[in-house]
C-alpha cells in the first residue's frame, strides 16, 4: 500500500468497515509514513466515535412542528426546542468521576445588562400543547405516602421526578449495589427540604413538565470486575427564576467497587470504593449544588457550617467544597456561575476558608485551601498568607501560601518583604524557590525545576517535587487539576526529559497512592504529548518490567492515540501482555486496550 492507496481509502472507503487485511496493509504503510499517519488517525478515530441515538420523541416533535407550521400558515413557527439546551454528545465518558455540563440559557427578554452572555432564543415550554402536538401527557405521577415533603399548606419549591431504575448490571452483586444506590438516593432526596420527590413511569413530554427535573439512573457492571457504575442523567425543566424557561441537562457518573481493592483518590487519599449510600450522598450533593434552584438559605447554612468552630475540620472542609462549587444565587435571570470555584469569591466564604485553614490540623486540607484561594485576590488574604508562608510547620502548606502570595500580591510591599524573608530563610528548597519566583519571575523557577530533576544526589521523590508542583494548577478545594502540556513542555528540554524519564519509574514505584495517581497522570501526559523517543522507551520498559502496570497501561493508551505516529512496538508489547496469563488484571487491560485502539481503524465498525 502506498500514499495514494491511503488517500483513496480516506476519500472513498468505508472508514468504519475496513477489513482486517486493508487495515494491516495500511498499518504497515502508516508506520513508515508520518504524513499519511497524521491524516489517517484523526479520521478513522472520528469515524469510530459513535453518535448518540436520536431521541425517541424527535420524529414526533418534528412532525408536530411541521404540522403546526402547516396549520398556522406562518413561515416560521418557533422551534420546539427540546428542553435540554446543553446536552453534550455521548462521545465519551468518565468513570469514577463526576461529570456534568450545564448550560443555562439567557431568557429572551433579558435586559441589555447581560450582553456578555449570549442570548438563546429559548421557546417557552408551552409552545406546543400536548393536544396539538400529539405528545402524550406525562402519566399521572403516582405518589407514595410520604413522597411529598413540601411544607404543609404550600406548594413544593421543586419537583424531582424519578424514572424507573434502569439496572443492567450483569452480576448479582453489582445489581444489588445499583439497587441499593437507587434506594439510598431516593431516601436522601426525600430528606431534602422543599423538594418534592415523585416517581414517574416515563419522562414527561417536552413542554409538559411542571417545574423541576427528571432523573434517570442507569446502572451497569463489568462481570467479574468487582465494579459497578451508576450514571445519573438529569433533565432540568423549568425554573421560576429563569422565567419559566428550561435550563439544563447534566450527567453524573460514578464507579463503585464491590471488591475490597480500593482505588485511592488523588488529592485527598480517600478510598473511592464507596458504598451505595456514600455514592448516593455524592449524587445528592451534586444535585443540591448544581441542579436544584439556587437556594440562598442552603448556601448560608453551608457557610455557617464552614464557619462553625465547634464542628470537625472534615465537616467544615466538606462544607467549603460544597459552597465553592455551589450554584450561586442568580442575580439576574439566566445568570450562571462562571467558574467551578465561583463560590470562593464570596467574602464570607473566603473568611470561612481562612478560619478553617487556621483551625485544621490536616496539612493537606490547609494546602488545598491556600491553593484554591490562589484564585481569589481579596485584600483580607494578604496577612494570613504572609503568616502562613513564614510559620506553617509543613513545607507543602508554606509552598501553597507562597505561591498564592506571589500570584496575587507580588506588587505589595508587605508581600514582597515576606517573600524575601522566605527566599532567604525557609528550610525547604522548594518553598525558597517559589518565593524567588514571586520576586524575580519564572526563569529562575524553571531553572530550579530542571536542576532538581537532574540532581542524582537526591531521592526520586525530591527530584520530582518541583515539577509536580509546577504542573498542579489551582483548583477548587479537595480537587486536583493538572496543567496542560504547554506548561510542562516549556520547562523540559532534551536533558531534563531524559532526567525525568530516568527518575519517573522509580518515583512511581516508591510513591504513596496519592502521589502515584499524580505521577500516573504525568506519565500519561508525557506519553501522549512528548515527542522524545525516551518516553516511549520508558513506557515499553515498564510495561514489561514494572510490578504495578496500571500507570504504564494508561501511558500505552496515550502512545497509541498519538495523532502523529503509533509506534508498532507498543502494540506488540501489549499483545504479549494480553497473551500472558500470569497477571490477569494486566492481561485484561491489555486486551481492552488492543480492542479499543486498533492499529489503523475501528475493529468493529457499525453499519451505516
Amino acid at each position: 500500500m502506498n500514499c495514494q492507496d491511503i488517500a483513496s481509502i480516506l476519500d472513498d472507503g468505508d472508514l468504519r468497515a475496513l477489513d482486517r487485511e486493508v487495515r494491516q496493509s495500511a498499518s504497515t504503510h502508516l508506520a513508515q509514513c508520518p504524513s499519511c499517519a497524521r491524516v489517517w488517525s484523526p479520521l478513522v478515530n472520528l469515524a469510530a466515535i459513535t453518535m448518540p441515538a436520536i431521541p425517541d420523541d424527535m420524529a414526533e416533535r418534528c412532525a408536530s412542528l411541521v404540522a403546526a407550521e402547516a396549520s398556522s400558515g406562518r413561515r416560521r413557527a418557533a422551534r420546539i426546542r427540546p428542553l435540554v439546551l446543553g446536552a453534550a454528545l455521548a462521545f465519551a465518558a468518565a468513570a469514577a468521576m463526576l461529570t456534568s455540563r450545564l448550560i443555562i440559557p439567557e431568557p429572551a427578554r433579558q435586559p441589555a445588562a447581560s450582553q456578555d452572555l449570549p442570548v438563546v432564543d429559548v421557546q417557552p415550554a408551552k409552545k406546543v400543547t400536548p393536544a396539538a402536538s400529539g405528545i402524550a401527557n406525562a402519566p399521572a405521577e403516582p405518589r407514595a405516602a410520604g413522597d411529598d415533603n413540601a411544607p404543609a399548606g404550600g406548594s413544593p419549591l421543586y419537583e424531582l421526578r424519578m424514572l424507573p431504575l434502569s439496572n443492567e448490571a450483569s452480576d448479582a452483586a453489582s445489581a444489588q449495589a445499583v439497587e441499593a444506590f437507587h434506594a439510598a438516593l431516593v431516601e436522601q432526596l426525600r430528606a431534602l427540604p422543599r423538594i418534592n420527590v415523585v416517581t414517574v413511569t416515563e419522562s414527561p413530554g417536552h413542554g409538559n413538565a411542571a417545574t423541576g427535573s427528571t432523573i434517570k439512573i442507569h446502572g451497569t457492571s463489568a462481570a467479574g470486575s468487582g465494579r459497578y457504575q451508576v450514571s445519573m442523567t438529569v433533565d432540568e425543566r423549568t425554573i421560576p427564576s429563569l422565567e419559566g424557561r428550561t435550563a439544563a441537562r447534566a450527567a453524573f457518573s460514578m464507579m463503585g467497587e464491590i471488591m475490597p481493592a480500593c482505588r485511592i483518590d488523588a488529592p485527598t487519599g480517600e478510598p473511592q470504593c464507596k458504598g451505595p449510600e456514600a455514592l448516593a450522598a455524592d449524587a445528592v450533593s451534586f444535585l443540591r449544588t448544581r441542579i436544584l434552584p439556587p437556594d440562598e438559605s442552603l448556601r448560608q447554612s453551608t457557610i455557617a457550617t464552614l464557619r462553625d468552630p465547634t464542628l470537625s475540620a472534615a465537616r467544615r472542609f466538606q462544607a467549603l467544597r460544597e459552597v465553592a462549587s455551589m450554584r450561586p444565587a442568580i442575580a439576574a435571570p439566566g445568570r450562571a456561575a462562571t467558574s467551578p470555584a465561583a463560590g470562593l469569591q464570596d467574602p464570607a466564604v473566603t473568611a470561612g476558608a481562612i478560619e478553617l485553614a487556621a483551625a485544621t490540623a490536616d496539612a493537606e486540607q490547609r494546602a488545598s485551601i491556600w491553593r484554591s484561594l490562589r484564585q481569589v485576590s481579596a485584600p483580607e488574604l494578604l496577612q494570613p498568607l504572609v503568616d502562613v508562608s513564614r510559620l506553617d510547620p509543613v513545607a507543602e502548606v508554606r509552598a501553597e501560601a507562597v505561591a498564592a502570595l506571589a500570584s496575587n500580591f507580588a506588587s505589595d510591599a508587605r508581600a514582597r518583604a515576606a517573600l524575601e524573608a522566605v527566599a532567604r530563610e525557609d528550610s525547604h528548597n522548594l518553598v525558597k524557590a517559589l518565593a524567588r519566583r514571586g520576586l524575580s519571575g519564572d526563569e529562575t523557577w524553571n531553572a530550579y525545576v530542571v536542576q532538581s530533576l537532574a540532581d542524582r544526589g537526591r531521592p526520586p521523590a525530591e527530584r520530582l517535587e518541583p515539577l509536580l508542583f509546577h504542573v498542579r494548577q489551582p483548583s477548587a478545594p479537595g480537587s486536583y487539576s493538572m496543567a496542560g502540556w504547554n506548561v510542562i513542555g516549556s520547562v523540559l528540554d532534551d536533558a531534563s526529559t531524559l532526567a525525568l524519564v530516568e527518575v519517573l519509574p522509580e518515583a512511581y514505584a516508591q510513591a504513596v497512592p496519592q502521589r502515584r495517581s499524580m505521577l500516573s497522570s504525568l506519565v500519561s501526559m508525557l506519553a501522549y504529548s512528548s515527542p522524545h523517543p525516551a518516553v516511549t522507551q520508558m513506557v515499553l520498559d515498564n510495561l514489561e518490567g514494572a510490578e504495578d502496570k496500571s500507570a504504564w497501561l494508561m501511558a500505552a493508551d496515550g502512545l497509541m492515540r498519538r495523532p502523529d505516529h503509533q509506534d508498532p512496538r507498543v502494540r506488540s508489547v501489549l499483545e504479549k501482555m494480553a497473551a500472558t496469563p500470569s497477571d490477569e488484571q494486566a492481561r485484561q487491560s491489555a486486551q481492552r486496550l488492543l480492542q479499543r485502539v486498533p492499529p489503523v481503524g475501528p475493529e468493529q465498525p457499525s453499519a451505516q
Partner: protein
Amino acid sequence: MAAEMRQKFHALVTPHLERLFRVACRLEGNTADAQDLVQETCLAACERLAELEATSYPARWLLRVQQNRFIDGVRRRRRAPVVAMDLSVLADGVPSAEAGPEELAAQSQFQQRLLDAFGQIDKTHRVLLSLRVEGHGLDEIEAITGISKTVLRARLHRARESLAQRLEAQASASSPVSRLGSGS
C-alpha cells in the same frame, strides 16, 4: 391540513431522521444544536414538499438541505453560556463498563481533543468530513453537495490536513489527562 402534513412528514422524512441526526451531531458537536438543525431541516423540507416527493433520493436531498442550513447559519442560533462545572469530559450516556476509570478518562480525553479539533475546522470541511465518517462515499457526497469528484478529492484532502493541524496544535497546547476532583 396539519394531519395531512404530519402524515407526509412521517412517510417522507421520518425514515431519514436518524441519518440526519447523526450527521447533525457531527456537524454541531452537541445534541441540542443537532436537534435544532434537524428541526430546521424538517421545516425547510416541508416548505418544498413537492420537490421532496419528486426526488428519487430523499436522504441525499434532505442531507443537502441540512448541509445548506448548517453552512448558511440560517437558524440564527445564539449559544447559551456554557458552564463547565468540572474539568469534565462529556458524559451524556452510559459509559462502557468494560474499561477502567483511568482508561476511560484517557480514552475520553483523546476523543474530546479530536472533537474539539473537529469543531474548529472550517464549516465546509466539517460537512465533507462528517459525511465521510458517516459512511458516505464520493458518489454520494457528490450528489449531496453538488461538488464534482475531482474537486471533492482536493477539498477532502484539505479538510483532513486541516483537522490534523488542529489536532497537533491542541496536542501541543493542552494536557492529555486532566484530573477531576474527588467528586462532591
